[in-house]
């Protein structure tokens, strides 16, 4: 596995720029989803998930998961990760 440092990226959460830590990229039904953590405070972090979509230029972008069932599926995988 790659080192953890190689799996970080910058995100803006509620107008604040933060460093996101990629936990895992998973595929569900042929779509890719990235599960990542954004620090909330010194002790806790929010666990977030976004769909990874490759744009026309071949770059990966993050798209919000609108489907509730998909969110539940991602949550199930997160539960497995943290179990």
């Amino acid at each position, binding site marked *: *596995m*790659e080192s*953890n440092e*190689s*799996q*970080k*990226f910058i*995100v*803006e*959460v*509620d*107008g604040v720029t933060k460093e996101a*830590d*990629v*936990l*895992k*990229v*998973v*595929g*569900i*039904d*042929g779509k*890719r989803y*990235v*599960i990542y953590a*954004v*620090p909330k405070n*010194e*002790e*806790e*972090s*929010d*666990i*977030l*998930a*976004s*769909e*990874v979509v490759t744009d026309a230029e*071949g*770059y*990966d*972008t*993050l*798209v*919000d*998961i609108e489907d509730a*069932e*998909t*969110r*539940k*599926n*991602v*949550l*199930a*995988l*997160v539960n*497995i*990760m*943290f*179990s």
Partner: protein
Amino acid sequence: MEETVIAAKENLKNSFTELGKNLKIYATAKIDLEKSRLKTVGTSMLGKVKDVNTSISKALNNGKKSILKFKENVSQKATAAKAVIGSAKNVAIKKVKESLGNFGQKATNVLIKSGTIALEGAAVAVSAVNGIINFTSEQIAKYRANRAERIRQKQELIAQKQREQAARIAEAAEREKQHQNAVESAEAFKEYFREQRKEAVLNFKKGAIQKAKSAMALMKIVGKKLLNSLNPRNIDLKIANAFANSQIFVTSLFNNAIKGINDRIDFLSEQLAQYRADKFEKERVKKEKIEAYKEELARKKAEKAKEKESHKNAKQSARVLSAEMRKQDMLNLKASVVQNTKSALSKVGSMGNNIVQAIKNKKDALDEKVSTAFKEARVKTAGYIVGGVLIYNNVKNYASEQIKSFREWNSKRKEQAAIEKAAERERLQKEHDELIEKLRIERDKLIEEITKNIKQDPVVAPVRSM
């Protein structure tokens, strides 16, 4: 018979030998067959492992490429892209990151355990270790359903445990309550027995104090002070004094002892032995004196008891004597009364038949009177002695009445006698006077005759006067 048995034994032995040979042949054939089968399986597994390794290598390469590309290109705003799944402790996240290497295997195992993944899917998932791990929504849905069921069961189990725990707590509370009641009862009993004991101790103390007082009084009497109060501050000095009194404590040691007040005091074993011997001797002398005093006390007590007994006997004797004397006095009085009565009767008798008759009449009257009085008073008389002897009171009253009557009668009789005597005297005087007068007349007559005769005869005889 014996030959038959030997033959049977031989046959049995041969049968066992044949059976052993057959078993050996069967076992060899079975082992060869299993070896062959295992070899086939092993070859197949080696091929599969090779395929898996190939798949893993491919997946790793794809994952690396994907991640690198992702890392390089993902830099857009995530505000609209994020879907908050939940929150986790940073410590947990760190552990997850460290263990994500086997996430694929772990997820596969979880899904397999949930019965939601096929062998092919597992193989695909396992091949994606450290890369993108692919799942189907059906698999995850099954997993979620299973997980939800497990959670439900777990919650139910927790609820059941909570109910059981509550029941145990209630039971424990009940036991605790019973225990508390038992403890309270025990405490009450304890308190009761404590009070009883306290009372007993107090009584014992009172008794002990009384005994101590008696002992102290005893000691005072024998002139010895037995008890000396001791306390931690003066005990050393008292010990020293005790040694000094027993004359075995030299000055230097005494000084050392004084310095050692409230501190350590050293004594020689000879000193202690001497002190004990001296104390023992004192105790012996004291005991002897106490014994002597006790004996003296017992002797005095015995004397006193004897004296008391004697006094009691004397008192009893006096009481008996007194009663006897009173009885005797009574008898004497009765005898005296009887005698007096007899005497009175005798006197009465001596007064003549008239008097006797009068007394008898009076007596009868008095008897009647007394009898009537007794009847009216409903007093039982003890009877009276025929011939004038009555029981003391009756006789006394009777005699008193008799004497009184006699005195009255006698007084009247005397008066009558005096009257009669005076009348007799008067009569005699009258007769005398009359006789004198007669005589005078006669004399005068004679004188006249004589005078006449004298005149005729001058010689006249002298007349003697009366």
